[in-house]
Every structure is written in structure tokens, then in C-alpha cells.
């Protein structure tokens, strides 16, 4: 291809290459940004970013799953986080109070996990109930305009859940200063708060278990099948309604777990879910709707993006830069950086 000028051709080639393999480019850019961040801020920033990344990953994975399997743009996902935080608080605090008078090293070590486990279960139950109560009836009634209808329904659910919590539990923050009152541990010369290390570890373990479940088990495979071809899934004997409930329950459980593990960082209050919701959506839109694998990686990428913006851009524009980036991405790669995997969604 002949060009008369060198510069425009180069620019063209860059844009074309980005469009062809946006994933590669973005990962490269993000890694560079991350490196720059560590260079200027040090290892504590690494820990913060990585912990935040785990949180966004847990949240986004659920969102991507619900979108991919059920075609529901889930706006009440932040409330799943909130529920997890509250449940963890109400499980952990009494135990913790008891342990003040009856010290027990073992119980003190595992008490926070009790909160996390109960929170995850609560999330699973809540998800199942919501699905059966709200989406099952909607599915029976209208298949038309499903995506927007389901979206608006989740908006309603979000409204009810957050205000219902405000009504019943009040607006005060329910937090804990720390899960384990121990000095920070020292790894390779870096001081790491135990709570954060555990939060990150739990997130990673949860994601790995979830991934293995999805890829290697019969039920996980069935869920993926439903997200690809519902008729085909029925043809092999998969119960669609059952899978929907399971999926929604799973997604809610993961978000609740995230809320529980980070109680020391995000106290429980009615609208605590807004920020996780926003970021989960940001990740999912960026990587491509319904793309579960992309969501995991995307969670960490967005955490880096967030940190970079906070560090290198003025605080006034902190909210604008991510949106600007999103607009750019959608302009060039409308189906998301890693490709969208949603049935029935096309751009127009």
C-alpha cells in the first residue's frame, strides 16, 4: 500500500493494529502504567491496587455471568455487595464481642471467616429468591424487549433493597476497624496489613474455584451452554430455569463474599454498593459484555487504571478520565476490548 506521507500511515497502522488486537495493546499499556505506578509510589500501592483488583474482579465476574447467561444487565449488583457487608458485620461483631471477654486464639483467627462464609451463603439465597420472585415471572410474561425490561427491573430492585436497608437498619455505618488485630506482616521488605492480604487471597481462591467450576464440572459446563445456545441446552436436557436461578445465585454470592472480605475497608451502609456497582459495570463494558474471563483480568486492569488516574491526573478530573477512556474504547471497539459474548446483542 503506497502512502505519500510517513506519519499518517503509521497512525493508520496503529489504529488498525489496535482494532485487530485491542486486547494485546491494552494489556501492554496497563502493564506499563502499573510499572510506572509502582516506580513512583512503591509497593504499598501494589498491595492496594491488587486488593482493589480482586474486589472488582469478584464483582465483575458475577455481572458478566448474569449478562452472558441470562441477558440481564444487572443494576442491583451493588446491593449484593452491601448485603454481604451487612451479614458479615452482624455475624462477626457479636463473635468478636464475645471473644473480648473469652479470649480464644483459634476462634479469633477464624471468626472473620465465619462472617465471610455466612455472607456468601446469604448472597446465594438472596440471589435465588430474587431470581424466582422477579425474573421468573417476567420471563413468563414478556420476552419482548427483555434486555431493557430486565435492566429496569434491576433498577427497581436496587432501589427497593438500598432504601429498604435504610428503612430497617438506618443510615449509620457498620464497620470494623480490622478483622485481625495483628501487626502487619513483612514480605520482602514490604509491610502488608493482614486483612488486605487475606481479602486478596480469598478473592483469588474464590475466583479460581469459580473458574474451575465453570470449566470442568458438568453444571459449570451446563451454565456455559445456556449462555451460548439456549435451545441447544434444552436439547441436551438442561433445565433452563434451574440454571438461571443457579447463575443468579452464584453471581450474588460472589459479590456478597467481596463485600464481606472488605468490611474493614468498606463499612456496611445502605449505599455502599454504588461504587462496586459502578466499577463492575465499567469493567464489564470495557472488556465486553458477558465475557467472564475478560472480567477477571479486567477487574485488575481497572484497579490499575483507577490508581493511575488518582496519581497522575488532577483530582477534579478523576471521574472524567475513566469515562473518556470508555467512550474511546466504545468508539473503536464497540464489542469491548476482549470481545463480547452475549447472545442477541448487536450494535446498530
Amino acid at each position, binding site marked *: 500500500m503506497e502512502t505519500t506521507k510517513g506519519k499518517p500511515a503509521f497512525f493508520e497502522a496503529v489504529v488498525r493494529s489496535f482494532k485487530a488486537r485491542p486486547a494485546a495493546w491494552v494489556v501492554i499499556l496497563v502493564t506499563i502504567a502499573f510499572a510506572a505506578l509502582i516506580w513512583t509510589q512503591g509497593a504499598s500501592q501494589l498491595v492496594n491496587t491488587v486488593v482493589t483488583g480482586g474486589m472488582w474482579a469478584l464483582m465483575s465476574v458475577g455481572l458478566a455471568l448474569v449478562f452472558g447467561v441470562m441477558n440481564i444487565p444487572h443494576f442491583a449488583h451493588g446491593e449484593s455487595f452491601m448485603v454481604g457487608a451487612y451479614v458479615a458485620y452482624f455475624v462477626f461483631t457479636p463473635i468478636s464481642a464475645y471473644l473480648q471477654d473469652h479470649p480464644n486464639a483459634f476462634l479469633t483467627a477464624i471468626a472473620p471467616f465465619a462472617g465471610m462464609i455466612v455472607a456468601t451463603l446469604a448472597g446465594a439465597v438472596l440471589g435465588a429468591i430474587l431470581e424466582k420472585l*422477579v425474573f421468573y415471572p417476567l420471563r413468563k410474561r414478556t420476552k419482548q424487549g427483555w434486555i*431493557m425490561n430486565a435492566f429496569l427491573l434491576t433498577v427497581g430492585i436496587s432501589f427497593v433493597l438500598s432504601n429498604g436497608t435504610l428503612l430497617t437498619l438506618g443510615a449509620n455505618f457498620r464497620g470494623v476497624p480490622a478483622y485481625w488485630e495483628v501487626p502487619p506482616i513483612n514480605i520482602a521488605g514490604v509491610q502488608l496489613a493482614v486483612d488486605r492480604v487475606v481479602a486478596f487471597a480469598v478473592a483469588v481462591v474464590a475466583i479460581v474455584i469459580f473458574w474451575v467450576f465453570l470449566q470442568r464440572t458438568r453444571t459449570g459446563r451446563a451454565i456455559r451452554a445456556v449462555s451460548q445456545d439456549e435451545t441447544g441446552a434444552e436439547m441436551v436436557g438442561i433445565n433452563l430455569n434451574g440454571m438461571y436461578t443457579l447463575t443468579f445465585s452464584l453471581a450474588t454470592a460472589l459479590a456478597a463474599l467481596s463485600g464481606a472480605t472488605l468490611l474493614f475497608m468498606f463499612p456496611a451502609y445502605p449505599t455502599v454498593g454504588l461504587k462496586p456497582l459502578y466499577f463492575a459495570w465499567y469493567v464489564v463494558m470495557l472488556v465486553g459484555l458477558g465475557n467472564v474471563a475478560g472480567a477477571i483480568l479486567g477487574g485488575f486492569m481497572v484497579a490499575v487504571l483507577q490508581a493511575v488516574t488518582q496519581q497522575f491526573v488532577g483530582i477534579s478530573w478523576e471521574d472524567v478520565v475513566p469515562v473518556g477512556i470508555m467512550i474511546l474504547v466504545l468508539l473503536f471497539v464497540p464489542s469491548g476490548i476482549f470481545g463480547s459474548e452475549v447472545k442477541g446483542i448487536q450494535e*446498530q
Partner: protein
Amino acid sequence: MDIENPVTSAAPGAGQAEAKLGLWAAITKGLDVIGFSPIGMLFLIIIGILPLVPPFNQEHMVRWMVTGALLAAQAVAFDFTAGYINVVNFGFAAFVGLGAYTSAILSSTLPFLLIHPGWPTWITIPLGALVAGIVGVALGVLTLRLRGIFAAVMAWFVGIALMGLATNLTSLTRGSLGFAPQALLASTSNVPYFYIVFAMLIVTYIVLRMVTKSRLGLAFRAIGQNVDAARASGINPTYYRIVNFTLSCVFAGLLGGFYAHYIGSMTPKTIMHTSKTVEVLAMAYIGGRGTLWGGAAVAFPFIFFIEYLRSNFSQLPGLHLVIYGVLMILVMIFYPGGFAALYATAKAWVTTFIKR
């Protein structure tokens, strides 16, 4: 048969009766042009008179009327987009806020603000609408060629970004400290404010209604129902979406401008937060999307109900919002047509009942 030529009928009053019928038909037709049914006009007149009639002429009740009219007008502007081109402007409140802050800043004379030209409000409010419209066009151009859910989420993101901007540019907006815009009128009574916002509601409704009846409106509906078919008929969906979206944003900005100079004190969070969009959205849907008047009609009783709850059950914060949300969910699942559909069913039932 028309009014000029009396019908050759035996009864002397017959001609008069038919003339009356002809006049009635003319009135109904005239009303229809501006988008009102006779009952709708009646409802409007009642609302218009209410603030002068006890017990509604108490100041706090007139305040509710103002809030009601504001919500009603917003619902109309919102439904114009959501109900006709099937795009949910999930950042709607941010556009209201844009209008509010633009007007507030431009009319302000506070010396510690970055800019404070101190222009009169009758200039700054339309300017607020203009700014909202410009941002609306920009957002529209960037996102409205995408599928509905993308456009909605992008509007949501942009709304959050705008709210964040407003919070962070404190030298311009005073951020979370709050802004005290000039009052619109010297009067301390809510009544004149009501009639201004009431006029805005009427104008918003009539203008948007007439647009929906025009060729533009036809294009909107075509796009809203089947994009591919519309495109095949030669309609450029993106162009019409942008036009619709921008118009809606202009009115949002206008109402925001009014709100700023009425409320006397505002922060980004109280105007531009997503929950404010949800309140308008819930109203539009409960009222009946795609009807324009549905949300406006239910707004007034709703506000009264909610304010009543708020004053009598103040120990239960957020109760009204919970009810809002539950109602919206129920309507969306079980009665998607909303109040407008209920009204249509009732009207049909009554008409058949009368005809018997």
C-alpha cells in the same frame, strides 16, 4: 351536516343541539392538536386552580404542588426519549443538574466563585437549557449509534462523571458545600413559583407532544419499534435519536434552571445523583411509558402521597422510596402499560357501559 346550514328537522332545538355538538367537536379537535383530551384539559385546569383553593392554598401544600409539577415535567421529558425511541437516559438527573448549575453560576454574584457574571435569571435559565442541550448532543453523537443498553449505561457513566466534576470543581460550583442560587422571584410565597413551573410543564408537554405528532415523531416511533425496518425505509436512526435525546436534555436543563432558583440551596448529590434519575424513571414507567402524559398525571397524587408519608412517618426514612420501587417492579412485571393503560381500560369500560 355543518353549523352553517341548519338541518331540516322538525324539532326547533335540534339545530342548536347539533351546533353545540359541532362546537364540541371543534374544541376537542383543537385540544387534540396540542395534545389534550377533554378530560386531560379538565385535569390540567383543576391542577391549575388548586393552589388558590383551600385547603390546598397552604404554603406547604403549594410547595408540594411545585415539586409535583417539576417531577411531572421531568417525567414528560424523560418519557419522550424512553417511550419513543426506546433509549433510557440513565443520566437524566445530570442534565437537570447541568441546567441548574449553569444558571446558578451565571446568575451568581458571589465573589469567591471562579466566574460570577451575575446575569439575570431569565437569561441564565435558557442558557442552562442550552448547555444541557449541547452536552446532550455531544453524548448523543458519541453513544446513540450503540444498542439501547449501551447508550443507557453510557448516559449513566456520563451522569456520574458530571456529578463528580460538579463536586470536584469547587471553585466553580462550591461542590458539596452547597450552592445558594439567586431566588427567581422576590416573593416568599410558593404560589407564583408554582405558576411558573406549571407553565413550564404545559409548554414542555405541548411542545414534545406536537413533535411526537409530527414526522419527527413518526420517525421516533419507527426507530423505537424496529430499527432495521426503519433504516430500510430510509430513516437514519442515529440522527433521529440524537434529535430526540437533545430535545429531552434541553427541557431537562430548563427545569433544572428553574429548580436552582426555586430551591435556594443545592449540592451535586441532591440534584444529579442517579437516584434522582430513578425517581423520574419510576414515575414515567408507573404512569405509562410512551404516553407522555402518564408520568405527569401520576406525579401529582404521588408527590402528595409521598410528602404525606414523609411528614407523618418521619421515623421511617426511605419508606416512600421503597414503595416507589416496589410499585415500579409490580407495574413492570404485571401491568407494563402503567396508569395510562389502566385509564384506557377504564375509559373503554365506561364508554361501553354508557352505550348500553
